[in-house]
């Protein structure tokens, strides 16, 4: 076989690992990314299978069995994580809460992603007046205090899943716009973009098939970061009583409901907080990891 081991550089390049193999190697060697992907995947499965996995109905109250302790604090396996102040099974509420967090995070990130990407790519591609207007709008948006505006609008329109998703989706587009604008500026002067323009490709075609694929990796990173941001904000709004309304099982709401019994039953606050922390941590690690493996030169 030594016959093939020539010093021909071309042949060496052919025999080297393919880009896909390189990427796979990087993914498998990145502990943070693997942890993030694993946890997010697990929680998505749990959220989808909630009706199968939850031992009890998350809405059914059992006032005779209020604040039963979790099994590791001397409770029974009937309620592995105990029950809340209305006797509802805590594990079941936690499992259904994953649906609320993931749904809000994903849809809010999607809405703000569409708005922010459209603005950012337009600003970067067209430049000039379009850029000036978009940059101005980003400045205005950044000047508005997110929590305050979100709370006020949710209070006015009434707290429901749809309103919270809509408000967060309309508020969190700033980072998409900033990053997509900068990324588009970087690619738009590349030769392949000029080439596409020279052969007469229409503007939408240039943007969709030349620009977008080359800034997609940055987009995915921002999607994950904003998803984590939206999940934390929903939890904060619900904690303040102006987000998702009871009896919906939201982790932020569970912390808020457990707060009054916090001194005697601290696990009521600890458990939903830890789950929230782990989910947001996993999404962030996934985003950081994706940035590292797709564009290692952008690592900070």
């Amino acid at each position, binding site marked *: 076989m030594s016959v093939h081991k020539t010093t021909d550089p071309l042949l060496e390049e052919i025999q080297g690992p393919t880009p896909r193999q390189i990427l796979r190697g990087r993914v498998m060697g990145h502990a943070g990314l693997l942890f993030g992907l694993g946890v997010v995947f697990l929680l998505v499965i749990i959220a989808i299978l909630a009706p199968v996995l939850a031992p009890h109905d998350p809405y059914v109250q059992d006032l005779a069995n209020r604040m039963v302790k979790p099994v590791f604090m001397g409770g029974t396996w009937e309620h592995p994580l105990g029950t809340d102040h209305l006797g509802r099974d805590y594990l079941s509420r936690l499992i259904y809460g994953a649906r609320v967090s993931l749904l809000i995070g994903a849809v809010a990130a999607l809405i703000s992603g569409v708005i922010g990407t459209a603005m950012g790519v337009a600003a970067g591609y067209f430049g000039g007046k379009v850029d000036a207007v978009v940059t*101005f709008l980003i400045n205005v948006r950044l000047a*508005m*205090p997110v929590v305050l*505006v979100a709370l006020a*609008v949710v209070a006015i329109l009434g707290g429901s899943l749809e309103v919270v998703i809509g408000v967060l989706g309309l508020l969190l587009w700033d980072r998409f716009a900033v990053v997509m604008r900068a990324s588009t500026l970087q690619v738009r002067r590349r030769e392949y973009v000029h080439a596409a323009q020279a052969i007469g490709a229409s503007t939408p075609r240039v943007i969709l098939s030349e620009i977008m694929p080359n800034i997609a990796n940055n987009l995915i990173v921002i999607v994950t970061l904003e998803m984590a941001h939206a999940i934390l904000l929903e*939890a904060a709004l619900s904690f*303040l009583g102006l987000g998702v309304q009871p009896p919906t099982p939201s982790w932020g709401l569970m*912390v808020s409901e457990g707060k009054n019994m916090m001194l005697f039953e601290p696990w009521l606050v600890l458990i939903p907080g830890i789950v929230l922390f782990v989910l*947001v941590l996993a999404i962030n690690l996934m985003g950081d990891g994706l940035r590292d493996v797709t564009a290692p030169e952008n690592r*900070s």
Partner: protein
Amino acid sequence: MLPFILKRLGLALLVAFTVSFISFSLLFLAGDPAVALAGETASGEDIEALRRLYGFDRPMLVQYGEWLWQALQGDFGESYYFKLPVATLIGDRLSVTMTLGVCGITFALLTAVPLGVVAAIRPNSIIDRFALFVSVAGQAMPSFWFGLILIVVFGIQLGWLPPSGASTWRHFIMPTIVLGYYAMPAIMRLTRAGMLEVLNSDYIRTARAKGASEGRVLFKHALRNAIIPVVSLAAVQMGFMLGGSIVVESVFALHGAGYLAWESIARNDLPTVQALILIFSMFYIIFTFLADVLNAWLDPRMRSS
């Protein structure tokens, strides 16, 4: 330098003007404020009378113009709930929030900058990994939950610190940590990245070649240049933190402007909410303006962009 300042000031004013319009428009999103004011038992005539009294029957732009004109003179109208001038109400509460904001950003800078510098001097060391862990955890920590945990541990179990209120400086310790930790990860990461970049640059090699001591190289040459972007980030974070104080103040029952915002939102007290959104935005606009000017002064290259 002067053209830069004027241009930047013009932009700041335009942003402020737009934000004022948006925060005023919130009132109209709420539907008819007269109905909300009058309460559920009011008759149609009562509502009509209130509408005339407050001038809600006039076109929106007229009302906006009047509101803006009075706001510029420091008059934000009267609170629906407290029946006091909004300006007095906010003025009383703002000092708590400002104290919290200043303490929070100081805490964030005092922990993030040294950690970022050490992490950059010894990349991939245990300290670097610790710094990374602290910042990743900080970004994922729900601040209301972190606050509650601190209250249970240090306020109740150990009894070291008062769990809520704002009467002494000790009441500010836990809120400062919670709010500061929120701003810390971004500052730490930027300090680390800036130091890493600067430490690999030619002038650092020159300074070392000249025989400058390591301390002199790090602090006189490297940190000075790496800290410039941190200054503007700290200003931006300070603006965000004032907005974030709403969560922290309600957890610790600190009666500042953030707590007032939560109270007035829950009570449909729109004049107060409008004024608070405008004031928090103004702080952000002023901080970022000052940061940009400071940056341009420290680094003349910034003036052209």
